[in-house]
């Protein structure tokens, strides 16, 4: 395979991987933060204590986290099809990617929120802040470095999951790696894909670290 043959394929694959990663990151951030906030709020000593709700959420998160991605992806094919109309392709891959990353990120969000100084929360309460204000202006804001660090870890995981998604028709660099590198023994292609994935992960990690440093005022 010549370089000229490889470039368009690699470009396409990278775009698809980025597409899957970006969209699933977006949905994961929203879902994970929501779920993480709920886990903290409904906890026994939380701002909105509801132990039964907390336990149910905890179980759901744990189930989500214990399912291997490939199995989850296959298991929810009917759901994916109902949601996006197809079970193959980049768009379809976003569904299982998001679903598997949300519980993972939710736990990281929960941890980050728990690290917020309870004294600051009490001070906000004493100032007459409402729960919504405390969540928005205190918990999420104070936990920003932790939230971003957690999201960075999640994005890296999403990139590697997206490669797996490629294995069953998800497209992207993972798909290329299987079709050319694995099935046709195109070593050059395989190497190029590896380099691209490593670069992508490095880039994400560096950006994440930079953002965390910027947000930390300790």
């Amino acid at each position, binding site marked *: 395979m010549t370089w000229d043959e490889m470039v368009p394929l690699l470009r396409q694959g990278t775009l698809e991987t980025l597409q899957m990663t970006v969209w699933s990151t977006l949905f994961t951030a929203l879902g994970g933060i929501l779920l993480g906030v709920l886990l903290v709020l409904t906890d026994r000593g939380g701002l909105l204590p509801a132990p039964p709700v907390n336990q149910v959420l905890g179980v759901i998160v744990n189930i989500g986290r214990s399912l291997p991605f490939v199995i989850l992806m296959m298991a929810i094919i009917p759901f994916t099809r109902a949601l996006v109309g197809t079970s193959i392709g980049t768009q379809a891959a976003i569904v299982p990617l998001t679903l598997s990353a949300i519980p993972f990120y939710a736990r990281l969000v929960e941890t980050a929120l728990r690290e917020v100084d309870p004294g600051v929360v009490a001070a906000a309460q004493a100032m007459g802040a409402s729960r919504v204000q405390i969540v928005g*202006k205190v918990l999420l804001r*104070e936990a920003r470095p932790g939230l971003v660090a957690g999201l960075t870890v999640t994005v890296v995981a999403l990139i590697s999951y997206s490669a797996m998604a490629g294995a069953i028709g998800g497209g992207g660099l993972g798909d290329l790696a299987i079709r050319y590198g694995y099935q046709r023994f195109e070593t050059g292609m395989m190497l190029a894909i590896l380099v691209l994935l490593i670069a992508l992960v490095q880039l994400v990690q560096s950006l994440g670290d930079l953002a965390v440093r910027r947000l930390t005022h300790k």
Partner: protein
Amino acid sequence: MIQIEKLRKVYRARGREVTAVDGVDLTVREGEVFGVLGRSGAGKSTLLRCVNLLERPDEGRVRVDGRDLLELSGGELRRARQRIGMIHQHFGLLSSRTVAGNVAFPLEVMGVPRAERAARVAELLELVGLTEHADAYPAQISGGQKQRVGIARALAGRPKVLLSDEATSALDPETTASILELLRDLNRRLGLTILLITHEMDVVKRICDSAAVMRQGRVVESGPVRELLLRPGSELARGLFPLPEPVLRGDTTVVDVTFEGESADRPFVSTLARTYSIDVNILGGAVEDIGGTRIGRLRIELPGPPDVNAAQLAHLREAGLTVEVHGVAGDAAGAGDTATEEEAPVS
């Protein structure tokens, strides 16, 4: 300004019950600085947290500026809290916001428009002397400066009442003094009523008009500081004038004499010695400046047991001194404990 009635708070954790506040009655008058003292675990913080209902009492009533807080709805309580400032031992500042941002926080909570907010923040920072540090983050300023931010923030809603839980306990003595000075100044200039919790005698001595001592969830004594110091058997006085347990020999009378203002200037010891031709032994003592008056306590020893010293003790009382006679050695009161003669409060 603050009325606490029959307040009780019980913590229940894993079947174990801790009565943190056990039937406390307390009144803080408008414009005064009221200190609550007590050992660790006495229930001071719990009591304070019941005043703005960070902690819901199990029984009793809490009134602040005439309003019964327990009757308020969620929204009303939040608005009431905006008018009750609170400062904390560990400051409770948002690490992600600058000094100015921290002071702006309560204004945002109150829904003050942005333009007004900036002006008010500047005004508050000026008040606590932090204008230069407006753009610093809490991690970049000292503990004393952090507490100033805490104070500026607490004053944002123009409160009539300020609650302070060990606001100076994390600070060194010099910084403590400057923060107490600031609180005293705010109390005078703004007429701010301050209810503060402390375990430091020095805080009471420096800024409190009145004080209460708590032990095991109960208030064991309370009143104006001056009166408490003159009250025989007062724990506050014992804390402020630390004298060792007296060695009682039975053939002498050990007396603690508390004096204030004018009577402090008269040489009562030598007068006593001369009048009765006795040797008066001075065992110890201290003089403190409390709210502008000098109050002192002197421990003296007179020859002969208390019953032969009746005239001498009467003489001291007539001189306007507060007299506290220690029990005799071998007394049923037992070692370590100091039995005290019944005494009418000083008028």
